[in-house]
């Protein structure tokens, strides 16, 4: 089993062949993100429309 060193700067994941050559890679971040929803439950609107009024958006 090979034990490759660090990937080049900017790569998030890569596939390497048996000689250690990169054959596929990504530079997109791997993001695991969750957003809490208390504001929605309370009917609060954290977005402000163009007129400066804060209105509930029911979409």
């Amino acid at each position, binding site marked *: 089993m090979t034990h490759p060193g*660090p990937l080049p700067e900017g*790569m998030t*994941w890569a596939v390497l062949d048996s000689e250690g050559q990169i054959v596929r890679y990504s530079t997109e971040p791997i993001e*695991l*993100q*969750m957003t809490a929803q208390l504001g929605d439950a309370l009917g609060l609107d954290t977005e402000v429309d163009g007129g400066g009024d804060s209105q509930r958006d029911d979409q």
Partner: protein
Amino acid sequence: MAAIANATISNILNATLPTGASAGQPGTWTALNAGQMKVRLNSTASTASAYGTELSGTGYTAGGSSITTSSTASSSGSSVTLPAMAAGLSWTNGSGSSWSIVSLDLTDNAGTPVRSWFGNFNGQPISVANGNTFQVAQNAITVSLT
């Protein structure tokens, strides 16, 4: 992609809201196993309620690979990145056939692991031919809660 496992969602909610046994008090935080956390790879997408189908074969250890270096802790709501090891994490496929990698899970080190977070790899499915290596870079995974 959103991704907290249901067990962890309930743990967070119960420990931070008045769900405790005593009236109006917060519930109890259920700590994860104190051993090194693990990254598990799957050939299908995980969901909040279930793991994806785990990879198998030579080159992949069932249950996932240990994270051997601690990440920088979150402060003031900042995200956490992992794995912190300089070489990241890697798996060399010796199974005799191709792997198709779709998602990952983060778990604790318990005999019956508790799953904390999950998500798909961008660009999935990622085909890794027999003899090839899949490598995740240092701090390539960003986890945030907003």
